[in-house]
C-alpha cells in the first residue's frame, strides 16, 4: 500500500533521515520505534508533507506522493496524528471534527464519519460543544484520532499516541488502534512505548540515527536479545548501536 524508497530528510544541515526504505501492506499495523532523535517523527513529517523530502520516493497505492503538499496527501488518504495531539484548543470538539472534513466536498460523508467517530469515542459526543483545550489528555488524543478519521484516511500515521497519558488511558488508546485495524485501517505507529507497540503490530522497524537498524515481524524483534536489553534495561544503553 505504501512504499517508501531511499527516503532522506534534512533540517537545515542535519540529516534527520538517511536513505530509509520500508513498506506497509494494506490492513497492517507497522510500528516504528527508536530513541529520541532517531528520525521517527521526521519520517512521519515527510510522509505527511510537513517537511520537504530531500531525496527518495513515496508511493501510495501506485500514486507518487513524493514532494506532495499536505492537502494532496490528505486527499490521497494518508493522515498524520501528530505527537502531542495538537487539537485546535480554542475550537469546540465539534468544530475540530469539522476541520477534519475541511477537504471533503461530500458533507454527507463528513456526517457519517463523525457519527462513527462518536460511536468509537462516545465521550466526544458528550463534549461536542466544549472547547478542545478543556479536555483531558486522553480525551484530546481521542479527538485528534477522531479528527483524523473524519478526513477519510486509508493510512493512519500515529505519532506517540500514548505520550503523557495515564496507564489506563494508554491501554484504551491501544484498544482503539486494534479496533481500527479490525475495521480495515492501515496504521503506522511511532511509539516510545516500544513493547506495547510491538505487541499490537505485525511488523516493526527500529530506527537509529536516521537509518533503519533492524526490521522484521514484531514477535521476533521483541525476542531479540539486544532489543530486549535496550528496552528492558534502560535507555542509556541505546547508543550501544544495533548497527554494529
Amino acid at each position: 500500500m505504501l512504499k517508501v524508497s531511499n527516503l532522506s530528510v534534512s533540517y537545515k544541515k542535519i540529516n534527520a533521515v538517511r536513505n530509509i526504505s520500508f513498506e506497509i501492506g494494506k490492513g497492517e499495523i507497522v510500528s516504528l520505534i527508536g530513541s529520541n532523535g532517531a528520525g521517527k517523527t521526521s519520517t512521519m513529517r515527510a510522509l505527511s508533507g510537513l517537511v520537504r523530502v530531500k531525496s527518495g520516493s513515496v508511493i501510495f497505492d501506485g500514486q507518487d506522493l513524493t514532494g506532495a503538499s499536505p492537502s494532496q496527501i490528505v486527499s490521497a488518504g494518508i493522515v498524520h496524528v501528530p505527537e502531542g495531539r495538537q487539537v485546535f484548543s480554542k475550537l469546540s470538539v465539534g468544530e475540530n471534527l469539522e476541520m477534519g472534513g475541511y477537504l471533503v466536498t461530500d458533507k454527507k460523508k463528513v456526517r457519517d464519519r463523525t457519527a462513527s467517530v462518536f460511536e468509537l469515542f462516545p465521550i466526544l459526543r458528550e463534549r461536542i460543544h466544549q472547547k478542545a483545550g478543556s479536555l483531558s489528555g486522553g480525551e484530546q488524543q481521542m479527538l485528534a484520532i477522531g479528527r483524523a478519521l473524519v478526513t477519510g484516511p486509508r493510512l493512519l500515521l500515529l505519532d506517540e499516541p500514548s505520550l503523557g497519558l495515564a496507564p489506563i488511558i494508554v491501554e484504551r488508546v491501544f484498544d482503539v488502534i486494534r479496533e481500527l485495524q479490525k475495521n480495515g485501517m492501515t496504521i503506522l505507529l511511532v511509539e516510545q512505548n516500544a513493547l506495547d507497540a510491538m505487541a499490537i503490530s505485525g511488523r516493526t522497524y527500529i530506527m537509529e540515527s536516521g537509518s533503519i537498524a533492524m526490521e522484521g515481524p514484531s514477535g521476533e524483534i521483541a525476542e531479540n536479545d539486544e532489543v530486549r536489553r535496550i528496552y528492558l534495561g534502560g535507555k542509556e544503553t541505546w547508543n550501544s548501536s544495533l548497527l554494529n
Partner: protein
Amino acid sequence: MEFFTAQLISAVKLGSIYALVAIGYSIVYSIMGMINFAHGELLMIATFSLWLLLSAGVPFAVAVVLAVIITAVFGILIERIAYRSIRNAGESTQIITSLAVSIFLEALCQAIFNSSSKALIIPDVFSQTFKVLGVTVSVIDVVTLACTAALTVAVVLFIRHTRVGKAMRAVADNQEAANLMGINKDRIITTAFVIGSVLAAVAGILYSGKYTSFSNDMGFMLGVKAFIAAVLGGLGSLTGAVAGGYIMALLEVFFSGYLPQGIGSYQTAFTFLVLILVLLIRPNGLFGSSARERS
C-alpha cells in the same frame, strides 16, 4: 447634557472608524503573528480610489464599491509581494518590512498626487442633519454607525459559522494541525487580508466622507491609533478590537471636551497615558489571552 450627548455621538463615530481598522490588525495578527503596519495606508488607497473614480464621473454608489474592491486587491498584493516571502523570518524583519511598505505607499501617493489636501465631494444627502434628543446628527454619522455594526456582525458570523471562518480560527490556533487537515494557509491568509482591507476601505471612505478633505498622510495617524486600540483590546480578539476602538475614541473625545482650557489640546497625550496605565495592569490587553494560554 447636550454637550455631553454631542461628545458621545462624536466619540461613537470616531470609535467606529477605529474599530473597523483595529479588526483588520487583529485578524491578520492572529493568523500570521505579524503586525501589518501598512494597514493604515489602505484607508488612503480607498479614499484616493474613490476620489479618482468620482472625478472620472463614475456614479457614487458604483465608485464606492469599486474603491472597496481596489483596496482589497491592494491588500492581497501587499501580502503576496511583500509579506509572503518573509512569513517565517524574524519578528523584526516583519515589522521593518511592513513599515517600509507603509512609507513606500504614502510616498508613492505623494509623488503621484502631491501632498496637498484634497476635497472629497460626496452626495448632499450624507451631510443632511436632523435632531435627536436635541443634538444635531448628520446622515453620515448614522451611516458610519450602521456600517460598523453591520460589518462587525458580518465578520463575527463569518468567522464563527462558515467553513472558511472556522478554518481561519483553526490556522490561528494551530498552524501545523491545520496544515495536516489539508487547510491551505495561503488561501486563509489571503482571506484575512481581504477582510481587513474591506473594513479599512469602508473606514477610510467614512472618515474622508465625514471630514470631506484628505491627503496622502491620512492613514498614518489613524492606523497607529487603531493599532493601539487593537493592542488595548487584546491583539487577536475581535471583541477586543471593537471595544478598544470605542474606548480609545471615548477617551480622546472626552479629554478634548472636558479638560480645562489650555491643556485640552493635549487630549492625545492624555489618552495615551491612560492606555499605558491599562497596559501596565493588563499587558495582554483587556480581552487578550496571556501568552501561556495562547500556546
